[in-house]
């Protein structure tokens, strides 16, 4: 590491750390949706990345429409875009659950294949509508700036917004799953579907909305994603493996585990990326995660229960 002074290194670590935090936020948002769907319902949704991209395209559309028809509102369009992204992905999720997923609850491996098919279809639809090329979202000027923390450390404002969004959604999910009556019903259905049905919980409805919310959160992740990457029909696929690893690594049913593992993986990757090439950093992190999962398949956080 010769050639860098100590202050340089500190700044680099801080800025890489911050870059990692943005990646972390997107990971958390994506993983939260998956953690609900996979961890709570046991459903593998390979089209999760396409729900993310739906959110990203919604943000893209929103920025264009607002810029064209209501430029005065442009500075705050992003917040409307988040809601739109959530709504669109949520609705699509509900439709998908009704058409596809509900027939496959007893065959998780088949769900995986069917949702992969769905992801291909969605990709092609995006390509037909938006074209194969990557599109970027224009941000209002105030979101483009950066805070000058010290002489050498800059903190981009859009990063702060993404992180704020992540915190809000995470708290929301926590309240929903662990504090609300509905969350109790979700957990009851997960724990014992037959019994939950017998005590009068409408399991079909719970399944449908749970899936929808998981997808909706992926849509929000997509809105956040537009700030760090450009959107293309296949961009979602790039993230799906990472996200599944985040969820599995954290221990599928644990919210805290999901967040901790998203943090570990994203920080490790962005820190390593500075010293190695991007691809090698990714390989190293993936290999480590797979290695740890082989030693500790239950993930980082689990409860001991009777099998």
């Amino acid at each position: 590491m010769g050639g860098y002074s100590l202050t340089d290194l500190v700044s680099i670590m801080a800025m890489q750390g911050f870059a990692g935090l943005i990646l972390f936020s997107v990971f958390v948002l994506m993983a939260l949706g998956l953690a609900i769907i996979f961890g709570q319902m046991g459903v593998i949704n390979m089209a999760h990345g396409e729900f993310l991209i739906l959110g990203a395209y919604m943000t893209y559309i929103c920025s264009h429409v607002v810029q064209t028809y209501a430029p005065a509102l442009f500075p705050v369009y992003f917040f409307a875009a988040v809601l739109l992204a959530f709504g669109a992905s949520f609705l699509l999720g509900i439709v998908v659950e009704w058409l596809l997923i509900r027939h496959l609850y007893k065959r998780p491996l088949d769900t995986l294949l069917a949702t992969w098919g769905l992801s291909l279809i969605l990709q092609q639809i995006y390509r037909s509508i938006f074209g194969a090329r990557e599109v970027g979202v224009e941000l209002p000027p105030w979101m483009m700036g950066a805070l000058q923390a010290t002489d050498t450390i800059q903190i981009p404002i859009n990063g702060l917004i993404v992180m704020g969004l992540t915190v809000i959604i995470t708290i929301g999910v926590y309240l929903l799953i662990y504090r609300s009556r509905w969350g109790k019903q979700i957990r009851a259905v997960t724990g014992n579907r037959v019994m939950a049905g017998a005590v009068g919980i409408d399991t079909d409805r719970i399944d449908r909305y749970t899936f929808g919310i998981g997808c909706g959160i992926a849509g929000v992740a997509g809105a956040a994603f537009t700030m760090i990457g450009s959107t293309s029909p296949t961009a979602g696929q790039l993230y799906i493996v990472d996200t599944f690893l985040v969820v599995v690594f954290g221990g599928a049913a644990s919210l805290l585990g999901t967040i901790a593992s998203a943090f570990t993986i994203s920080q490790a990757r962005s820190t390593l990326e500075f010293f190695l090439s991007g691809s090698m950093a990714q390989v190293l992190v993936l290999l480590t995660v797979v290695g740890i999962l082989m030693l500790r398949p239950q993930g980082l956080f689990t409860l001991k229960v009777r099998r």
Partner: protein
Amino acid sequence: MSETDYMLAVEGLTVSFDGFRAVDDLTFYVDRNEIRVIIGPNGAGKTTVLDLICGRTKASAGSIKFQNEELRTLKEHQIVRRGVGRKFQTPSIYDDLTVFENLEISFPRGRGVFGALAFRRDAEVRDRVEEVAKTIFLADALQRRAEFLSHGQKQWLEIGMLLIQQPSLMMLDEPVAGMSVAERKKTAELLHTITAGRSVLVVEHDMGFVEDIAHRVTVMHQGKILSEGTLAHVKADQRVVDVYLGH
């Protein structure tokens, strides 16, 4: 503990799930050629005891000695190969296969990967399968697919799948649940004929059946032993009447 004559010696056996002690400091002994029945209210830990003995659940403390050998450190298939057979609560058989094939798969030969590849259906296998099929009243059904058997016949088939392994200790989890009266009678008969040279550990709720088969009875309650002895003895025990037999 030193060498004993017991088939099975369970001492101080404890297991807890997240702080809840499902089985708590349990000690009991099963003699050779004994049919022992474990009874008790739901949630008493009866099935968990069977799970612990056959290695499906790992104990937190205590010892399980089978013919003076500690089982706690062995894996499930090793325990089976030592001579402990286990029947599950709901009939657990291979629906796709015929009765013959169900029994053949359980025949204790060719248990390694390549042993299974080289396994041939010779006269010894055939004779043994037919012999066991006769014992479990399924001699006429050998070529029938197992999914088309009646519920009672499925239970017998699973007992037969244990029998063909010639275990020294057979553990049966509610073998007559869902059976007709006639089938229960036949099952009791079956257990008496197969107990020669082996011990049987049964978890059962049906008191009529328990009366038919049990040499001795162990009553469990909240993970502990409440009472033990002959059926007449435990029936006379006021605590047993209070928690179990009373209702």
